[in-house]
């Protein structure tokens, strides 16, 4: 649950580590995430189709990863934090049965504009599923 309290810039520090977030990667999350993002590519919901493509199982779509990145940052920053951008690079696929653990760090911080940049990665058993950066503006 996102804390109802939104952070103020004074409550953050350069180099601050975000609390880790471990997300179990399930068939339900991959399927449900694909459909909730209107992505009917068969590799995200049909295991036989995914195997035809050379994957051991269905794999998470990038729009679900985007959502989970938003969740990771927003759970820490609070509900009224405004995201200015989400930059995302995908690496190892997320297959069912794995766990993706997000870690992140404040790498830029501008007190005057209440703006932070969080650098993050979502790691699974095969390496980094996602690496990226999110720019967050906290309420003044």
């Amino acid at each position, binding site marked *: 649950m996102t804390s109802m309290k939104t952070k103020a810039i004074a409550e953050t520090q350069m180099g601050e580590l975000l609390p880790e977030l471990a997300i179990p990667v399930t068939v339900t999350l991959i399927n449900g995430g694909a459909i*909730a993002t209107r992505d009917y590519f068969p590799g995200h919901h049909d295991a036989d189709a995914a195997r035809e493509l050379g994957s*051991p199982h269905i794999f998470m779509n990038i729009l679900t990863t985007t959502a989970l990145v938003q969740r990771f940052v*927003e759970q820490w920053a609070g509900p009224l934090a405004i995201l200015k*951008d*989400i*930059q995302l690079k995908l690496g190892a696929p997320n297959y069912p*049965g794995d766990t993706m653990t997000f870690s992140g760090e404040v790498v830029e911080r501008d007190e005057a504009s209440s703006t932070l940049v969080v650098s993050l990665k979502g790691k699974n*058993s*095969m390496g980094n599923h996602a690496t990226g950066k999110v720019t967050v503006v906290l309420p003044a």
Partner: protein
Amino acid sequence: MSKRDHAERRVLENNQETNLADQVLLEKVQAMVGREYGRVYAWDQVNAPMIRHWCEIMGIENPLYTDSNFARSQGYSDVVAPPGMLQVWCMGGLSPENFPAPSSQENNFEVLKVIDPYGYPAVVAVNSDLAFNRQIVAGERLYFTSKLDSVSEEKTTGLGTGFFVTVLMDYFSEKVDGNDEPVGQQLFRVFKFKPAHRADVKIEQKSASVIKRPLPGISDDTRFFWEGCDAGKLLIQRCTACQTLRHPPGPVCSECHSFDWDSVEASGKAQLYSFVVMHYPEVPPFNYPNPIGLIELEEGVRLIAGLVGVEPGTLQIGQRLQVEFHRFDEQQTLPQFRPVAG
């Protein structure tokens, strides 16, 4: 010309043919770079039910997205759309290239269809960079326009060989007065490729295999060391002729050339002789940044081992360390060193 030379020459010729074909492909593709594509409209207005369904599966609980009273208390006219949904509104849906009128009939990823028949059947998304001008609220109708920004040279990655294709999209909110407002941008990059392992296509594996730490090669000279680790002891080889300690283990004493040896248990007290902190590339299953020490035991020999309990940037040459043993992957035990006071 021998039969083998002939075969090699044929392979070479085939490669050249491939390259010739690629040259034609590259010219076709480069001619398309910079092409702009018309409006693609969202099927649905930004709406509360789609937002709620998205939040539910993603595990996002923020009343700004689901509680219109809360959103109004924050000055919005209705619930806010999560920024991560920007791309969702303009997805085609079940038929990925089917968009509502008056959407453009052009396909902004048509270059993939040009590349495909040259032997690059697979595609994966590799980058999505979203930027948001402002919050989007339920009731708005979105569309995007796009541009083929670039197609890379042919690249080989762990997945296979192919091309990185980058499309830029500009998202707009439609206004009744016609002054449509830009609300966000997206860089979307895919890899269009020839899979590296076509023979493995029918993998029967049910899920991903877990990547484990590599195991050491164990010989008669080194077995005592690894068995010591399993027993939670840091054992150092000792020449029984001249008592010299040595590490890494070997068959012969470098001081007196005796082949006779036994081992002694080290105290585990040590100091940091040198170190490196690995940042990149990140290789599974290790955690990064990954600090590795060249460690001098108080008995005088040095060994290389992982450092644990280290705050980034605080390692100091000469600092005191103590060994501890960690079990990895339920199959090996390794000595690791932790900084201690004094």
